[in-house]
Structure formats: structure tokens, C-alpha cells
């Protein structure tokens, strides 16, 4: 029943460093991270915390997405990245396939719910209902599935910051079970006051630009965006030139604390190890790791120690692209899957911005320069989150 390979036929991304994959690549190459004070989100903390917003208002995004501007920004971002992913796959009319859309997000249409609540709390009969009509995570996914013309399978996953990676896994497993031919899988999240204030209560937001895997790091910067890959079966892959193969993946739980990672990163370790095992790979086969690398004391230490345990003295080039995009939460697993798959196709290793001081507990440090022409065979992408949810993906050249 479970057979065959799953290929990446295309990918699309919108983030605070670019409205499509090409713009994002240009930002990496020019060492241009996207942190700035917020222009679009309305918050009391606007001048306190830098964020990585997509540099466009809702009207502009809606015009690109072909959707009404009053819909959740999360749906607008999702539609733009999913459309780019599909177009890059070159697979033609989506109606010709048994197609699925597996999209992750963490707070659904919360950006609109926040507005609604101001009126509603003052008077429960007030507040425009259209603002909460798409509150549910699944409602956001459906707006995009409907716009894309996808009906065979539509689902939404929410496992905090690992959500997007789990969407790829579920999509791949449905293809291997013969249920679907193609799946657009990834995640989306717009910045909201809800998440900004939530992370602030945990005191893990950096007031400067975040410094992942740097000894002086003091927290993360929130970002927003969406990223999707097009997963296809062997049969569909024959019609196109896939970027690479999704060779391994694993999901494990840290089971240590609701929000913090265990000091030795047991969940991280199990996820990375499981992904390698599924791919039939050894640690030395990995040519680049796209780190979870949020920039919090806790994550980078746990992730770094788990990597050291698995890779020993042979840690491959590694970097956190969150030093450019910020932490895009439910979108991050999808965005970083696109970056990882593209890295493999183009031989790119991404830089880790703002690194200067080596972490004492680690023997390795992140890559700080953009490079092309690397002979990569296999790339790993890590996504870890609240609730102990840890996921790793491995992409292979063939």
C-alpha cells in the first residue's frame, strides 16, 4: 500500500524579504534581512519590537491574490505563495489531477478577530460578523483551496511552529498511499497582535535584530508569510523536472515542557534521526541544515546540542534563515521547506545574519555567507515548536 517516491515539483514563498522566491533569493544574496518597525500591524508595541512584515498592505496583497481585501491577511499570503508554487511546478491545469491542499497555520483569521473583539467586548451585539466568519484555522485554508479549485482533499494542521513541516509529511503520506497525485503543502501565518503579545509575555522577543546561534542572542523577531511546495507522485514527476525528492521525515515529541525545549533537545534529536533513517541516510550524507534557529536562548542551545549529538564532529554547513525572515510560526516549516528544496536544486547555502559570537556549548557555528555551486546531495530542514512538537524533513537530489 505504501510505495513509491514523493517529489518536489515546485515551490512558492512570500515573506518579509520578498514577494516571491526570486525576491527572497536576491535578499539572501545581498545580505538584506527584513527586520523593521511595523508598518501594517497596529500595535502598542510598534516602536518596541522589530518584526519582519511582508512589505505590502492588505489592498495590495488582495489585488495580487485576486481576493477581497477584507479577508484575513493569512489567506491572502497563503493564496499568493500557493499560486506561485503551482505555477513553478509547470503541471498545467490542477483539475487534471487528484489534488490536495494541506495548509498549516496557528491562529487562522485572528487578525480580523482582534478587530471584531474591540467592538464585541464593548457590546456583544456589535462587531461585524464577517470579521469572525474566517476565524477558524480551517476556514483560511478553504478560502485558498476554493480559489485554487482544489476539492479532493483539504486539511489544516496546527502544531505551533512545526505546523508547516507536518503538512508536508501528511501530504507525502497520502501520495504514497495512492490517495492523491499532487498535494500543495506548507503553511501560512500573518502577524497578529495576539501572537506578538503572546510571545512578549514569554519574554522571548528581541528588541534588536535576532541573532540565531549567537552567544549573545536574547530572543526572536516575529515574521509573517507563507510557503508551499508541490508534492507529486512518481507518475506525475515523470511529466516534469522535479527540484528534488522528499526522502525522509519524522515527527517526535519532546515531552519536556509546554513551551520550552529539553536542555539536550531529545525531541529535536529523535526527529532528525528519524528523518535520516527513513531516507536511508547517514549524518555525513547531509550537505546543509536549514536550522529551526529562532534566536531564543533555549531553542538554539537545545537544537545545537541535539545536532552535535547526531552529527558529532561532522556538522555540515548550517544556518537559520529566520535571521532574514523572522519567525513566521505556522508558515516557517513551509517557507523553509521551499528554501531547502531550492537550495538542493541550485546548490545554494544560505547565510545566517547577525552572527558574531560563538556559542560556548557548541563546537560548530552557522554559515555567514551566501554561496552557490555547492554540490549538495541531501538537505535537512528542522521545525520545532510549543507543545514539544518537533519535525525534521530531508530532501534528496534523486
Amino acid at each position: 500500500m505504501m510505495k513509491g517516491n514523493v517529489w518536489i515539483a515546485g515551490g512558492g514563498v512570500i515573506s518579509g524579504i520578498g514577494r516571491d522566491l526570486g525576491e527572497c533569493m536576491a535578499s539572501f544574496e545581498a545580505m538584506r534581512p527584513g527586520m523593521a518597525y511595523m508598518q501594517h500591524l497596529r500595535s502598542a508595541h510598534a516602536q518596541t519590537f522589530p518584526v519582519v512584515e511582508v512589505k505590502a498592505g492588505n489592498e495590495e496583497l488582495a489585488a495580487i491574490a485576486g481576493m477581497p481585501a477584507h479577508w484575513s491577511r493569512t489567506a491572502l499570503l497563503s493564496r499568493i505563495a500557493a499560486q506561485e508554487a503551482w505555477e513553478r511546478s509547470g503541471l498545467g491545469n490542477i483539475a487534471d489531477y487528484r489534488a490536495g491542499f494541506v495548509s498549516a497555520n496557528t491562529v487562522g483569521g485572528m487578525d480580523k478577530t482582534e478587530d471584531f473583539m474591540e467592538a464585541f467586548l464593548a457590546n456583544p451585539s456589535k462587531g461585524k460578523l464577517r470579521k469572525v466568519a474566517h476565524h477558524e484555522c480551517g476556514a483560511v485554508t478553504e478560502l485558498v483551496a476554493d480559489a485554487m479549485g482544489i476539492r479532493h482533499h483539504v486539511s489544516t494542521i496546527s502544531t505551533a511552529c512545526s505546523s508547516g513541516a507536518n503538512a508536508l509529511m501528511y501530504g507525502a503520506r497520502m501520495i504514497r498511499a495512492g490517495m492523491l497525485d499532487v498535494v500543495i503543502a506548507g503553511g501560512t501565518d500573518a502577524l497578529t497582535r495576539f501572537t506578538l503579545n503572546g510571545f512578549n509575555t514569554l519574554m522571548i522577543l528581541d528588541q534588536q535584530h535576532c541573532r540565531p546561534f549567537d552567544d549573545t542572542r536574547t530572543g526572536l523577531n516575529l515574521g509573517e508569510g507563507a510557503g508551499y511546495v508541490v508534492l507529486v507522485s512518481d507518475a506525475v514527476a515523470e511529466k516534469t523536472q522535479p527540484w528534488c525528492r522528499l526522502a525522509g521525515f519524522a515527527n517526535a515529541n519532546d515531552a519536556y515542557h509546554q513551551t520550552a525545549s529539553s536542555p539536550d533537545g531529545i525531541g529535536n534529536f529523535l526527529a532528525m534521526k528519524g528523518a535520516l533513517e527513513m531516507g536511508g541516510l547517514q549524518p555525513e550524507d547531509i550537505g546543509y541544515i536549514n536550522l529551526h534557529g529562532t534566536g531564543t536562548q533555549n531553542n538554539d542551545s537545545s537544537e545545537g546540542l541535539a545536532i552535535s549529538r547526531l552529527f558529532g564532529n561532522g556538522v555540515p554547513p548550517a544556518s537559520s534563515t529566520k535571521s532574514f525572515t523572522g519567525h513566521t510560526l505556522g508558515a516557517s516549516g513551509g517557507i523553509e521547506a521551499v528554501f531547502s528544496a531550492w537550495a538542493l536544486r541550485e546548490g545554494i547555502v544560505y547565510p545566517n545574519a547577525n552572527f558574531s559570537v560563538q556559542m560556548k556549548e557548541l563546537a560548530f557555528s552557522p554559515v555567514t555567507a551566501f554561496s552557490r555551486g555547492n554540490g549538495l546531495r541531501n538537505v535537512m530542514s528542522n521545525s520545532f515548536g510549543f507543545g514539544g512538537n518537533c519535525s525534521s524533513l530531508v530532501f534528496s537530489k534523486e
Partner: protein
Amino acid sequence: MQAFIQGTGCVSAQDSQVFPGEIRHYDGDRLPVADPDYKQWIDIKQIRRMGRAIKMGVAASHMSLEAAGIKSPDAIIMGTAYGCLADTGVFLQKLVSQHEDMLTPTAFIQSTHNTVAGQIALLLGCHAYNNTFVHRAFSLENALQDSLLMLAEDPSRKILAGATDEITEYSHTILRRFGLYKNASTAALQRSGTPGTMAGEGAAFFVLASGKDDKSLAQLTAVDMLYRPASEQETADRLLDFLRRNGLEPKDISLLLSGRNGDVTSDRYYGTVESRLFESTPVAAFKHFCGEYPTASAFAVWMAAGCLHRGAVPQEAMVKGDAPAAPARILVWNHHQGTHHSFILLEKC
């Protein structure tokens, strides 16, 4: 790949133990969960932070693991449409009223949709696969489908799967403004013939395994979902196709357990398809026991497993025909506002 249900746990408006021996009736526009004493399953230090969606989910999961005799499962897979609404509401209310100042972390931490599955893993010390589906009336269905895939990939696994959703004052007020509910009595809900239904909430969990043994209560044969069918005819065609893929015809179904909820438009949809496929099949309902919510199908699976295991269907569940004695096959068909249809096939084992 089919699965065997090795243990179940349910927290609902009905009694977790004596249903259907004793059926509780409600009047009004909602069926609240009769909260059990959660300290039976959860340490008091943990309870202090938990909203009801979390408590219900953790309690139901513990009941199912105990019944199955499993300490730690090989996967924890959850569905929740709304997530942890109480904590979301608390954090939003403070965010607005305190103008983003002096907010506390607990409500935010507890508000994330994966809190329930994460808490279950944390309390069990379980490092296994852990996933949460948050897709409206497909949340439980995807959790079950993911479980069936997990068992197909490795038949030695024991999987904990389930769903939880809660009503809060905010959510109920808002959903009522959408015109979803009416004041009614559960005893007469299925015959009301007017627009609107009664709100519900609850959690149900199942331990699933690929092999049958003396713990097995029922077989979970197949799950399918149908999104936005164009017409009742398309739904009927897909339902027939679902049965045939499992080697069955409509006449092989002992009982159709439908998601009828007393809303005249919604119930007419069931009626139309029933008249095309299930003219002579007895039809039962479950939403007058648990209320309407996107993961109510979890209650239906719990009820169906119980009926198959005991070999009896409560007469109070019936909306067409007589309660079948010793049913062999129950088809759960639930739809949510005509857009989300799920088919779940269970069999006696």
C-alpha cells in the same frame, strides 16, 4: 487498512459510563458537558492551568488508554476545529481591555491548538508522533485517516486518536448571532422541523490497533471525506462509491447513524440522500445526545463502537425504523452545513 478500537473514552453531555442506559435530556440552545471530576486523571498542579477543552481531551484520552491497557501509545493524533477557545478568549479580552499591557503567559500558552496533544504527550512522557488537525468538521476525520495511514505504514503501532471542542460564552454568543441555534428540547429536537439546532461540546478518544484481540470493541473499517459536493446526487454517488470500495452495498448497513441536528435544511439533505440509498435501512441520530459542533462525529464513533460491542442500539436514538438487534455494520454519515461530509464505517468484531 482497517483498525480495531481497543479502548474508548468520552466526555460529553451524556454520562461517560452509563450512556445509553440512562439518557440525559436538555432544554435551551446548548448541551453543556457535565464535567466529571478531572482530578481522577489529572494532577491538581496541572489542572489549574487547563481550560475545559484541554481537561475534556486529557480525561477522554486517559479513559481510552486505561480501557485499552496501554501506558504510552506510538502516536497521538488529535482533531479540534476551534482549539482552546476559553484561553483564546481570555487572552483576547485582556489584550483589548488592557491595551496590550500587563498580559500573562498562561492563557496564551494554553490557547495554541496543539496544547491538548502536547499535554497528553507531556503527562505520558510520550516522545512518539504527535499531530493536531484543525480543519472544521474534518478535524476528527483527518485524525482517523492519519491513524489508518500510520497503521498501514507499521501495523505494530498502537495509536491514540480523538477530538475535543468546547463552547465558551464568547463563542456561543457569536455563533448564535450567525443564526445557528434555537431554543429547543433534546427530546423533541429531531422532530422540530424548524431552522437552527442546539450547540454542543465534548471530547472522545480511541486507541486503535491493526490486530484484533480480546480488548477489541469494534472495527474501524474506513473513513472518507467529501468537500463541497455540488448536489445531493453527488453526495449519494460518493457514498455509494465509498461502500463499494469496501465491498458493500447499502443493504449491508445495519444502521445509518446520521448527523441530523434538528435544523430543517440540514436534515432535509440527509432525508434526500437516505431516500435514494437507504430506503429500508434503519436511521439513528446522535446530536440530540451531544449537540452540534464540528467534531461531534467523535461522539458518533464512540456511540457506534458501544452499540456494536454491546449488540444493541438505544431506541431513543432512532429517527426511522426500529433499533436493529445486534447490528453488524454502522455507517456514520455526518455533514456540516452541507459543505463538509464525512463517512465513517464501523463493524462488529
